[in-house]
Structures are given as C-alpha cells and as structure tokens.
C-alpha cells in the first residue's frame, strides 16, 4: 500500500505515508464477573505530501482505499497548507528493539479470561467492587517516504487495569493500578499489581483530617503526573517554536535539581512505547532532555524540526487522520533509570512500598497518589492546583490514614529546584518510568 500510495502521489515536493493495522481483544470483568468479551479491528492509511511547496495530509479507514481520491484530498489540503521544506529522511539502518512477543500475540481468549479471573480472585474483598480489564493488541505498522526510506514492525501490547471501589456509607474509595507492556505480564508483574493495590488500600481504610500549610509532600509515580506534565509540555519543540516554553533558550542551564534527569527513550527494554522507527521514517534514538538538572534539548518531529532548523528526534506520531504530531515515547524521569535487572516491575517489597522510603523525617505531610483535574489548569506556566483523589497523611514518618477534602498547589519549576528525596520505587506507569519524589513546601489547603 505504501509503495502504491507514494507512486500515486506523484508530487515533486515529496511525500510520506503510514499504514497501520490493529486488532484488539479485550475482556472486562465488572463487579468481579466477566461481563464482556470484544474484538476491535482497525486498519487505515495516512498520506502527507508536499505540493507546490505546501504540505497537505489525508487519511482513510476504507478497506480498499481509493488511492487517487486520497491523493486528491491530500492535494486539496496542501492548497491551504503551509510552505515548508520537509526533510524526508533517507533510508538508514534501524536499531533493534523488541516490539513483538509471541506469547502475547498467541494468547487465546481463554488465557486472557483465566488471567483476569485469577486477578479478580486475588483482589476480592468484603465490601469492595473489583473491576478488571485485560486488553491485548496485535498490530503492524509500515512507513515509507519518497526519499526511499521504508520501515515497519509488528507489535504487541498488553494492558491490565484493576480497580477497587469500596463504599462505606458516604465514603467512596477508588484505587486503581495497571500493567502496560509489550508482552503478557509475568506472575511477578501480576503479584506486583496486586500488592500495589493492597499497599494503597490498607492505609486508606481509615480517614484522618488533612494537615494545612506549606508541607513536605511525597508524590508517588502515579501522583507525579501533575508535576511532570508541565515539563512534558515545556520540553516539546512545538512549545519552543510557539514561544510558550519556559525552558526555551535555556539549553545548558541548570534549571532543576542536580539529580533529576528526563530522557525520551524509544529503545528502553520492555518499555510500553518502544519501537525501532517513528511514524515519519526517523530511526529511533534516545533523547536526553534534562541531564542532572541541566536542560539538554527538546523533542521534535519532522515539521517542527524543519521550522526550528533542528533535527527530528524521532518523536513523530501520526494517526490515520490529520498530520503527525510530537509525542513522547517512553519517558524516563528520575535520578536513575530502569535496567534489565531492575525494570521496575515485580519487585515490590516493604522497604520500597508506598512512598519509596521517603517518609523519614516528615513531621507532618502527605503522600499524594492521585490528583483530580490534572491537565485542566494553566499547565504550561508550571502552576498546579488540584484536589486530592487519593492521598495519605504522614505524621512523624509514618502513614496515619487517608485524607479527603484537601487540595495541593504549587509551581513545578520552584518545587523541582530542590528535590528533598528520590524514592527507591521506580516503576512504569503507562509509558512513563519514575520513582516517587519528595517535594518540600507544597501548599496544602483544607476546608
């Protein structure tokens, strides 16, 4: 399809295309019972071309796409498109990174059901509703461009999400965790998932009043989303070009704590977003963004690289419709990184449990595991303010219970200048790997 489409495009400015097919199988357990089994099949093609110096895109999910019609739509899009000299990359050798796992691809519906049932049984508790969803995806991607580059890879993906809802009178407690990976979870992965939920559940059973003031707060890998999000935006080449990144023009400067590094790594072993080539034919490579607190660079796709006179970092991601956009692959955040020996899965012991050993010396503070409304404020400026979804009070170094009706606020750039501690609980959460971080001086408000 790629060759035919590029042939049909016949434009002097060049073209590139992506074809993707995905088949997803999902089983859903609701309130402990298997209720639904489903499959999703989807295939489509996305074409971008440069016609008269202008860029246009078009896509279709039609089973037997009319290539001429697709090209005509892309040309119509180019008539309004911007003038841009896209540098379509030439063919080059691709790094080796596993994306396809036979065990995952060959797992039968029954196997997925058995895995889910087992998980439900282990999580079952009096008065708790357990919901589990297991999804397995088998896909294939092919990309190509008019400069002769061709690439492609098969991929598998498995997602296991587990949720406990516990309602006692008017108290609603929801605890959620997930496994996301290319391969089926091992027994160790599932043990870790169960223990991770148990670790959150037990201290949450009693509710205590929240503290108030500028306090030390431990953000777990899950709770860290609100802290990392402004950095993700600021480290995007797009935001740099738009003049809205607070980190633009600061490459080489020490901006954050000297132990904090942030890396985009499509080659991370076992990373959920690992792949050998991006959706614009750029071979995958590791991109250091922040090294020991110093800004090193930004992520780019072909378009933003062309406009910034920089190079694509291989972060182009495209759907079937619309043009490619910048997307992180695996984002590694912290003082360490996952290693094959310690991938951050299956190694959940008491010392590394909730908070990652960061509670020592906290006279009064919080552990934040989930915040509500992340992404809905003025994110790019670095300020955040959110009610807690799941948080615990820490007094004299120990967890004393769950807090509700409290809100945390601060500015990420101020707080990350001095990180009070890094947990030893580094783990994958979706495609982000990080440990817990302890930040001091976070505003905690209560009613």
């Amino acid at each position: 399809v790629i060759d035919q489409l590029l042939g049909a495009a016949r434009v002097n400015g060049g073209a590139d295309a992506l074809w993707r097919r995905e088949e997803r199988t999902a089983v859903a357990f609701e309130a402990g019972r298997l209720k639904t089994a489903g499959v999703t099949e989807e295939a489509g093609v996305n074409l971008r071309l440069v016609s008269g110096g202008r860029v246009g895109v078009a896509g279709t999910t039609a089973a037997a796409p009319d290539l001429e019609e697709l090209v005509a739509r892309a040309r119509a899009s180019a008539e309004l498109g911007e003038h841009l000299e896209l540098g379509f990359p030439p063919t080059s050798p691709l790094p080796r990174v596993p994306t396809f796992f036979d065990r995952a691809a060959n797992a039968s519906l029954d196997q997925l059901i058995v895995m889910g049932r087992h998980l439900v049984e282990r999580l079952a508790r009096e008065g708790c509703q357990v919901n589990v969803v297991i999804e397995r995806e088998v896909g294939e991607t092919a990309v190509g461009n008019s400069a002769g580059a061709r690439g492609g890879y098969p991929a598998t993906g498995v997602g296991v999400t587990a949720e406990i809802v516990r309602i006692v009178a008017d108290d609603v407690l929801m605890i959620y965790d997930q496994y996301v990976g290319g391969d089926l979870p091992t027994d160790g992965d599932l043990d870790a998932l169960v223990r991770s939920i148990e670790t959150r559940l037990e201290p949450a059973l009693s509710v205590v009043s929240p503290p108030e003031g500028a306090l030390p707060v431990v953000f777990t890998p899950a709770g860290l989303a609100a802290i990392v999000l402004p950095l993700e935006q600021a480290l995007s080449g797009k935001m740099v070009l738009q003049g809205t990144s607070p980190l633009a023009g600061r490459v080489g400067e020490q901006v954050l704590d000297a132990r904090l590094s942030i890396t985009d790594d499509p080659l991370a072993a076992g990373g959920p977003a690992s792949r050998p080539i991006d959706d614009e034919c750029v071979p995958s490579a590791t991109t250091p963004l922040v090294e020991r607190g110093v800004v090193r660079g930004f992520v780019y796709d072909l378009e933003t690289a062309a406009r910034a006179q920089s190079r694509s970092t291989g972060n182009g991601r495209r759907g079937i419709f619309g043009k490619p956009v910048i997307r992180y692959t695996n984002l590694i955040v912290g003082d360490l990184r996952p290693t094959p020996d310690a991938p951050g899965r299956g190694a959940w012991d008491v010392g590394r449990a909730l908070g990652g050993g960061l509670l020592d010396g906290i006279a009064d503070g919080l552990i934040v595991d989930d915040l509500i409304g992340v992404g809905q404020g003025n994110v790019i400026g670095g300020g955040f303010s959110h009610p807690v979804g799941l948080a615990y009070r820490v007094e004299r170094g120990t967890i004393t219970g769950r807090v509700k009706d409290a809100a945390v606020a601060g500015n990420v750039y101020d707080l990350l200048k001095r990180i009070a501690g890094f947990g030893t609980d580094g783990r994958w959460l979706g495609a982000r790997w990080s440990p817990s971080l302890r930040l001091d001086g976070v505003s905690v408000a209560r009613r």
Partner: protein
Amino acid sequence: LKDRLAAALKASRADYTEIRVERTWSSAVTYRGRRLETATVSEDQGGFVRSLNRGCGWGIASFTSLDALPAMVARANELSRAVRLDKPIRLADTAPHVADAALDLDGDVRGISLAEKKNLIEAYNGAMLAVSDAVVDTQASYRDEVSEVWYVNSEGTALAQLRPEVAVSGTAIARRNGTIEKGLASIGLRKGWRSVHGLEQRFRVAARRAVDLLDAPRVQGGAYPVILDNELAGVFIHEAFGHLSEADFVYENPQAREMMTLGRRFGKPVLNVGDNGAAPHLRGTLPFDDEGTPTQDTPLIQEGILVGRLHSRETAAALGERPTGNARAISFRHPPIVRMTNTYIGPGPAGRGCADLIKDVKLGVYACGAFGGQTMLENFSFTAAWGHMIRDGHVAELVKDVVLAGNLFQTLDRIDHIAGDFTWNQMGGGCGKGGQVPLPVTEGAPHVRIEEALVGGDV
C-alpha cells in the same frame, strides 16, 4: 445498506444482536499563532456489533471494513458464548422503533469549501492576536462533522440518523517574562455552518482575559463562599452529580445503590437537576440513543431529593427502572455506555441575578468560566478559567488559578441560592468516560451560590 444490515441481522444466531454502522464526514482547520497548522477533510467509517445470549455475557466486535460485517456478526456471537454468566444480563423492554431521524443540518458543512472555513477561523484567530503584543501564541480550531448512523437490532428497531456537529474554539496564551496565562473560547453546537458566524468578540474576550491574568494574583487557598457563573455551574453539576447519576456506577454495587437510594436528600429545596437528551438544538441532543431508545427529559433531583438516574437498557433492567435513552457511544469503535446528554440545574426565582447572590457575601470568590472538571465520584474538581474576589458584597479584584475541590455530599447540600438567569452553555470539547472521549454534551445552569467550598492555592 439497510438491506445488508437486515440480512446480517437475520443471519445472526445470537439471542439478541444489534448492529451500528457509521459513516462520518469531517473537516478541520487549525491555526497556531499566525500559521495555518492543518486543513483536512476526512472520512471515517466502520461498524459495531453486539450480541447477547441467554446465560452468557456481551460479545462485541468493531471494525473498519464493512465487508467483514457477516463475519463480525458471527464473531460477536462466539465471544458472547465464551462469557459464561451465572446471573443473566437482562435488557429492559423498549418498544421497537423504525425511523429516519435527520437532525437539521443548519447549513450542510459538506457543501462549504475548506477555504471558506479557513477564512472564518483565520478571522477569529486574528481577533485574538490583535488584542495585545502580550498574546504570544494562539490556537484556533474549526471542526465540523456530519455522521450518518444506521442502527438495527433483532427486536425490530431500525433507525437511520443524521447527526451534525460544528465547533470553533480558541486558546490565547499571554506571556510576560516568566508568567504565562491562557484564555479560552469554545463553542460547540449540534448544528451547521450557519451557526458559527459573528463570534469574533468571544475570541477577543478570551485573549483579553489571558492578558489580564498576567497581573492577577493567585487565589489564596481556603474555604470560601463561592458564586459560580452559569458556565462553571454547568460544569459543576456535570462533575458533582451527573456522573453519580449514571446507573452503571451503582447497578452492580449494593453499597453504591444504598448510597444513591431514590428519595435521599442531596440538597436544599432550591436544588433541581435533570438531564434532557430531547431538548431541541443542543449539542447533547439526539432523537434516539445508541441502543435505539428515544431520549427524554429525566429529572434527577427535585427540590433537593434524588428522584431519578440515567440508564441504559441493561442498568434499567437490573434496577427495575425504565431506560432513559442515555446509552451512548462516541463512535463505532466503542460500545454504548451510560452517559449524560444535556445536564442542567433548574433556574431559581425569575429576576434573581448574580448581584443578589453576592450582596451579603463579606469575603468570597466569584468563579467564572471553565477550563474543565473531573470526578472521582465522591470528590471532584472543577477548574475556573478566572475568578474575582468578592469583598463586602461586591465583585473585587481578578484572581487566577481558581480550582474548586468538591465533595458530593457536602458541596451540593451547601448550595443555598440559585439565580433565575438560566442559560445553556454549549462548549466544544466533551465528556470522557471509560476511554470514550470527547462525547458531545451540554450543560445548563443559572448563577449558583455555594455557602462554603474549598479553593486550592497557597495557604
């Protein structure tokens, strides 16, 4: 196509089968700063089959290749049979409907050139950029679609629906040194080309707001009396209560059922809440939901008392109630789940306005506009686009980062005054649940006063 659907249905060996096929034509134009980012026309199509057998669970299949329809009908049946259930799934009865229900396209967007759409959004984008040099970045988007949806089920329902949508939205980013602020304008309608003209002022105001916020202090955290404007009050009721009224949250959970017992008091007698999927010309409006049930106006809270909830056929049967036409799917890629449509807080006494709610507040917050909201059922957040302090009964200085922390049982009950100035707020974007986002919904509300609510911020 209708014949193909009928034939596929007839070939199904499942006890219950439904098929939904969609063809969506859409176009989009986006500006970023002074640059045109994209201008595209897309066609998306696909189908969805769901089967149910006695003693078994749901089998579902979605696909983009319509040639696969007969195979997918067989597949859904197989999947259903693979799910063994001791407690059967029942569907509440609904009368079969056969209808062609085309919503008014109000200027069919398919007949308008991409260049005209570009000119429209370029003007709105330009209106934001012209406000001030401090506006360093903008994003302005025009998006439209016309969806043709065919739905058939084995009980005799056969529907053909035409669903239009059009949305224009703008984000203005203002920056001075290290301070960055944003302003948002968003209009989403279940209408067509004729309805999105003459909106420059909305975009200008959004950009002005971003610039003004550069000088505004962050709100001080703490508990305050809070007055919500119409827009934020709408988001509030969607997050605070709407999601709790979706029966899929309670129907399998005895404790949740108890917590949400009909007849329980949730608010003072001033509070009336409902969801109306049949309200004319709103973004969440549809003649039928995605199970073929006609939509309706469903009262949820009357004079502070819980009186109803939102249902699919499955949740209605499980709770012995009637389906309300709230089973919705964002596309053929997803099964229908219980969702809101147009959710509202009913108006208070005619003539009572915002000033009447503020006049006896000594120190409070007037929270305006909405950047969004999210719920974890008991606790929820709703983020204002901007706010003002209220001092001695008057609207005072502008403040920013106004994020409210709500608690279902406390915040609703603390609504003590409701104005009479009801409006529907038809924003773009949409609601997210179960991986299905954005679902077109509308919220409507008058100004609302909460005696005391927690506002996040420095303390």
